[in-house]
C-alpha cells in the first residue's frame, strides 16, 4: 500500500512538473508575419477586409484584452475570417479565447438560419491558444491555416 502511494505521488508530482513546463513556455509570435501568411492561404475568391481596432472591439468585444491584434473578415455574408491576438497577459488570453468561442457559437447559430451554407465553417472553425496568443480561423478548409499556426507556435 505504501509503495502504491509513493508511486502515485511521484507520478502526480511529475505530471505537475509537466504541466508547469507546458504553461511556462514563452511564445514569441510575429503576428503581422503570421497574418500575412494566413491571408495568402485564403481562397482568393473570398473578399476579406482588415478590421480596424474599433471594428475588432465592435465585433468580438475584446476591448482592453489585447496589446496587438490582426483580423480580417468578409464584407459580404460569408463566415470566412481570422484573428490573431497577442493578449496583454495570459489571463486576458484565456478571456479572449472564451469571447471568441462565444462569438463562434452565436455566429454559427445565426448563420444556421440566415446563410446555412456558411454555418459549418464556424462549427469546425479552429480556435487555439498558446500562452498570450490566441488564434481563430473560420473557412472552408482550416488545415493550411492550422499548419501555419503550428509552425509559428513551435518557433
Amino acid at each position: 500500500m505504501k509503495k502504491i502511494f509513493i508511486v502515485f505521488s511521484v507520478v502526480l508530482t511529475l505530471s505537475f512538473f509537466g504541466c508547469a513546463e507546458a504553461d511556462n513556455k514563452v511564445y514569441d509570435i510575429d503576428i503581422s508575419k503570421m497574418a500575412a501568411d494566413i491571408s495568402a492561404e485564403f481562397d482568393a475568391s473570398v473578399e476579406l477586409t482588415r478590421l480596424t481596432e474599433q471594428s475588432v472591439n465592435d465585433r468580438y468585444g475584446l476591448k482592453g484584452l489585447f496589446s496587438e491584434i490582426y483580423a480580417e473578415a468578409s464584407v459580404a455574408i460569408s463566415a470566412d475570417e481570422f484573428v490573431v491576438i497577442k493578449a496583454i497577459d495570459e489571463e486576458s488570453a484565456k478571456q479572449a479565447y472564451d469571447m471568441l468561442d462565444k462569438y463562434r457559437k452565436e455566429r454559427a447559430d445565426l448563420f444556421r438560419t440566415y446563410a446555412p451554407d456558411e454555418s459549418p465553417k464556424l462549427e469546425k472553425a479552429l480556435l487555439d491558444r498558446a500562452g498570450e496568443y490566441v488564434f481563430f480561423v473560420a473557412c472552408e478548409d482550416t488545415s493550411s491555416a492550422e499548419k501555419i499556426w503550428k509552425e509559428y507556435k513551435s518557433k
Partner: protein
Amino acid sequence: MLSFSTRKNKRKHIFSLFVFITIFMASAGMIVLSAMGVFRENSGFAWLSSINKLEKNKPDTNTIAPISEEEAILLIGDAENKGDDVLNSGNIEEDLTIDRILKETLPVSDEYFEQTLFIGDSRMLGLHLSCQDIKATFYAAVGLSINQLNTKDFIKVDSETSYTVMEAIEKDGREYKRVYLMFGLNELGWSYPSVFIRSVADTIVQLRELCPEAEMCIMAVMPVSEEANVSIYKGNVANERIREYNAMLLELASDIGCWYLDTYNLFSDEQGSLPKDFAPDGIHLYSGKNRILMNFILSHAFAFG
C-alpha cells in the same frame, strides 16, 4: 375724305401696332439686361431669378475633391434661411413627397460623419466594414430587423456587456445630427408591408426622443440580383416587393418629415435588379461598390450646420 368707320379702323390699327411695339421693346430689353447679368443673384434684381443656386454650382462629382461642412454651407447656402430654392432644406410642411428625396449636393468631407449614426442590417454592416475610415457610428448586424432594435443586444461594450441599438444610443452620449436607417431586406418575408412601415415609423418616433437634434434619413431598400430575386422571396418577386416597400418608405418619409435616400436606383439595372457583378451573393455588395454607396451618401448630404 375718310368716313367715320374707316377712321375708327385706322385708330384701331395704330393702337394694335403701338401695343405690339411696346411688348417687343420690353421683351428685347429683358433679353439684353439678362445677357448683361443684371438678374444675377448679387444684383438688386436677384429676386427675379429662380435659378437654383445649387444646380447652378453643381460640380463634376467625378473630379471634385471633398469639401468641409463649412465650405459646403458657404457654397450651398444656409438651407434654413434660403427656403424654397435650396435643396434638402428641411422645410417639412411645404414639401411634397418628391421633395423628401435627397438630391445631389456638393460632396462633403468626412467631418460630416462625426455626428452621424447608421443603423441597419447586414448590408449596412458591409458598408461599415468597407468604409472603416469613416468616423460615423454604426450599429448594424447580420440578420437585424427593424423590430429588434430594443431586443437584440449585439453591441459589445466590453467582454461582459452588450447593448441593444436603443440602449447603445441612450448610453453612448453622442449628440447625433443625422441618423440613417437601412432596413427592409430581412423584412421581405413579413406578411404585411404595412407592418414593416409601421415598425419603421415607430422606430423613428423613438429615435426622435433619443436624438432630439437629429434629422432622420430612410435609405431605400437596394435591389437584389436576378439570381437572388428568384431564391430569396416567394419565387421571383423580391425586387417587386422591394419596390413596393420603397414606395411606402418614401410616402412615410413625406408623412413624418424624414429624408429618403434613393439607393435603389443607384444600383438597379434596366430590369430593376442588382447587376450580377456587384455582389458575390447577389445581395451584399463588394467593398468597391460599398465605396460607391458611401460616396453617394457624401454627395447627397443633409442637416448642415
